[in-house]
């Protein structure tokens, strides 16, 4: 099991005619466990990478 606690990233985008498109990049940090419980299991910190593309209107 992998538990992510948070991430930090950057967003860049473009607006035209009320429409918005933007890209996101986030680097997160989480902890991986061998089982879903936390007792007696080895764990390690793991990074997670997120690349996103968003498009919308009025936002």
């Amino acid at each position, binding site marked *: *099991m*992998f*538990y*992510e*606690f*948070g*991430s*930090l*990233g*950057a*967003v*860049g*985008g*473009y*607006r*035209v005619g*009320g429409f918005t498109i*933007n890209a*996101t990049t*986030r680097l*997160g940090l*989480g902890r*991986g466990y061998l089982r*879903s419980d936390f007792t007696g299991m080895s764990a390690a910190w*793991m*990074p*997670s*990478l*997120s*690349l*996103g*593309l*968003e*498009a*919308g*209107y*009025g*936002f």
Partner: protein
Amino acid sequence: MIALAALPGCSAAATAVPLAVYGRAAGDGQDAGYRVVASRLAPVETAARWGFYLGLAAGYHLSPGVAGLDWTLGLGLHRTGDRLEHVLALEGGLSHLGSGGGWTLRGMYTLRVSLGRWFLGPQVNAGWTKV
């Protein structure tokens, strides 16, 4: 409306976007997919405008050692100004990993710095995602 227009910084101009469609796709798998968003700007236009959105996202996880789908329902708030925009969002949902499952609950904050039609800024996510 008349009373609000009398407040400093407010005008009676109505700006409303009753519904918006918002798509989102990501490559990591944390929250890749698409989102349908309803957005409504405040009926009273001020120097900064507030809006709301409600979103639904489905994604594919590529986190270390696991892979699966992530379905997320999000509620957000954004404040738009001349130079800076603040976006707050809260997302919660379920993850499906083969026969297993997980869930996620996280808050997001994005600061957008407007550069004309372009914008750029940092984003912070804090919460709990189990995949």
